[in-house]
């Protein structure tokens, strides 16, 4: 067992330099598939004997991407396009792009013509999940993706492999949820950045490997006495909370993250694949039907506010930060309702604009300071 800091450093290093993780797997003779945001069916890749690796943008100024996307496109997509065009993703055997918003729809086509050396596999999730036919339809989408993946490996995925993958992913979900709980007892060690890195690094490791590391971290944390945190505690909601410097600002202002509803983080681990209910592909499709509380997934009732209120109570938080991804219309439609629901019950919330390329940190610092006082 590595010590706690070694494990945390390993995850941090993977987040800081995902390229090294990609090279590591390539050197092992593995094939790697890039997984665009969000809810990409990594299980199909994993069970096909390849490594799924999340590609969620990063700090890079869009230059080449400007020939594909207008300035008001999602910053993550701008970054992904830029990395793709610059060849930073060289070595990926393909990317999977779920078309969960209008920009992602277009990204399937921009990638197809712009980054021709890395094939694109589209994934069009059904949004009318009340329809009984949606599961059948999604299975057919999975089958198309599997056929395309098979052209890379030369082999078809089999039922046994997918069943095994499902066990691995469900176990990983359980461990990540446990980490989120245990982390709250150790907010001196699990700072906002560290928490983020543990969550995010799941995108850069084979899942069983990541489970082992995080389980080790949990075990070490559990052996330590709980830390009595005296600062303020917040929960993050939104797509992602990057760049890291933003999380450092929270820490500097004595604000800890005690929970998140981020698509980039806990939403990935929130919903397990059912253990029963049909063959492995069907169960994987049913996981999609069971997902909830995300702006990218059609649901009636605007329930996200209540979901946040429940998280607030469960985690003894002091307030929320709505990490509103710039130009993200699905999130912008949820914003008035979730803010309104929290205001109604006097739970503090502040909304900050998220842009991975953001350099205007002074304004953010002032904003967070003000929020701390409000808390």
């Amino acid at each position, binding site marked *: 067992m590595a010590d706690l800091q070694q494990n945390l450093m390993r995850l941090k290093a993977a987040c800081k330099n995902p390229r090294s993780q990609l090279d590591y797997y390539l050197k092992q003779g593995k094939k790697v598939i890039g997984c665009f945001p969000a809810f990409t069916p990594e299980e199909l890749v994993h069970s096909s004997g390849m490594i799924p690796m999340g590609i969620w943008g990063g700090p890079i100024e869009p230059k080449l991407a400007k*020939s*594909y*996307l*207008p300035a*008001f*496109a999602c910053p993550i*997509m701008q970054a992904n396009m830029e990395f793709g065009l610059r060849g930073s993703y060289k070595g990926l055997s393909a990317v999977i792009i779920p*078309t*969960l*918003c*209008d*920009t992602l*729809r*277009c*990204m*399937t*086509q*921009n990638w*197809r*013509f*712009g980054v021709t050396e890395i094939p694109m596999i*589209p994934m*069009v999730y*059904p*949004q*009318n999940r*009340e*329809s*009984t*036919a*949606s599961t*059948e*339809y999604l299975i*057919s*989408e999975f089958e*198309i993706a599997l056929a395309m993946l098979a052209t890379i490996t030369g082999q078809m995925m089999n039922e046994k492999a997918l069943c095994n993958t499902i066990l691995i992913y469900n176990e990983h979900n359980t461990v990540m949820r446990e980490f989120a709980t245990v982390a709250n007892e150790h907010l001196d060690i699990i700072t906002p950045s560290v928490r983020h890195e543990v969550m995010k690094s799941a995108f850069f490791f084979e899942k069983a490997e990541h489970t082992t590391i995080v389980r080790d971290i949990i075990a070490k944390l559990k052996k330590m006495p709980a830390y009595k945190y005296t600062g303020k505690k917040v929960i993050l909601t939104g797509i992602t909370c990057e760049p890291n410097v933003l999380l450092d600002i929270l820490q500097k202002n004595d604000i800890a993250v005690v929970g998140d509803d981020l698509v980039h983080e806990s939403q990935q681990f929130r919903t397990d694949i059912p253990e029963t209910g049909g063959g492995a592909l069907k169960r994987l499709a049913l996981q999609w039907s069971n997902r909830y509380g995300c*702006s990218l997934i*059609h*649901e*009636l*009732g*605007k329930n996200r506010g209540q979901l946040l209120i429940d998280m607030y109570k469960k985690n003894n938080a002091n307030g929320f930060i709505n990490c*509103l991804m710039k*130009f993200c*219309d*699905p999130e*912008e*439609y*949820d*914003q*008035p*309702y979730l*803010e*309104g629901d929290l205001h109604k019950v006097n739970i503090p919330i502040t909304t900050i604009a998220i842009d991975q390329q953001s350099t205007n940190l002074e304004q953010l610092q002032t904003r967070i300071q003000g929020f701390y006082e409000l808390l």
Partner: protein
Amino acid sequence: MSEERTAAAPVAKPKNPKAKSMTMIGEQTDTLYENARLAKESGEKVGWSASIFPQEIAETLGLVILYPENHSAGIAARHQADPFLQECEGPLGYSNDLCAYAKVNLAYATVLKGNSSVELPDGGKMVKPDFLLLTNNICTQLTKWYENLAHQLDIPLFFIDTCYNPWDYVTESRVRYVRSQIDQLIKNLCVFTGKQWDEEKFKEVMKISQKNSYLWERANNLMDCKPSPLSGFELFNYMSCMVCNRGKESTTAILKQLNAEIEQHISDGSSTYPTKEEFRVSWDGIACWPFLRHNLHTLKEYGVNMVASSYGKAWAIEYDDLDGMARAYCFASTNGDNASTMISRRYEALKRFGCEGTIYHVNRSCKVMDCQMMEIQRQLSKIAGVPFTSFDGDQADYRNYSEAQFETRIQGLVEVMRQNKEEK
């Protein structure tokens, strides 16, 4: 006083008489809103619908349906959008990044609900809905917009998820999924409204709808005459009959009249385009409704006529049964299709209509149009050998447009088109 004003007024420039088809479309629109008012008064349920929802379903059931996108476009075109945009981005707390059709409509709905004092410039003719009909073949943003409307107004949402098309054809699995949703939606709508589904009536409506699609496409195709018999922007005025009344006989009458008028122009050698047609262009994207007049005026200065549009023909939807309907509505909107399909459709149009250039509307409201437009521009220009320009605008938000930029861009395009012409 009035006599003095009359005396001082400049002599009015004689206007072309309004085409009969235009009068008919005005009457049809008035009837639509009047029917909605009467239905409300008599306690009948009225719906709001996405613009490329299978209108034939509602028509068969005899439901009165209004169309928020069409209504918001009208408000924007009449320069009445501002108070709604302010209300939406202010008290309602929405981001200004969102679709301006949605912003206008969400604010309008708030007034109908009694939670806003913004004055309704049309007296509330877009009556408060009892249910919503949604398809997402135009964009995914519509899904969120209607989610919010359903919650805000506490009314049911009937949804057909048509799925984005990354392939060059509609996969059979999509057809099965969409067909299943259509069947379920019909059942649910019947339960909710108390109406009965009549297969014979549906066949009749389908026939009318097919006839209308044919007539609409035919009218668009008559623009291939040189010079064109119409000022292309005029066809935008007829879109409401295809969006809101696709399955109605009144639309057949309007489109027959329109076709006859166009044919008359062709046989007379006349045109409603007010000046000599020097250049023929295609228009990509939704009309820039708040500045339609400025667009037209600028284009006219250079003799540029818009003879083809990527947009209006989205409502020429052809099918002959419910499976066909499922397939057709998956493939109807150019926004729901992959780039190859978009490019091939546009290429055919450029060739057919003899276009010498393309104008791309970078519509700030519409990410699904904008976020792959640049690649489409490059490929299309290369295969068709036709220059293009783009301008920043918006379908309903007047704040996202610069008259100077539009003029400069058109000037640039005209120079290239002129040079191309001289070289031929």
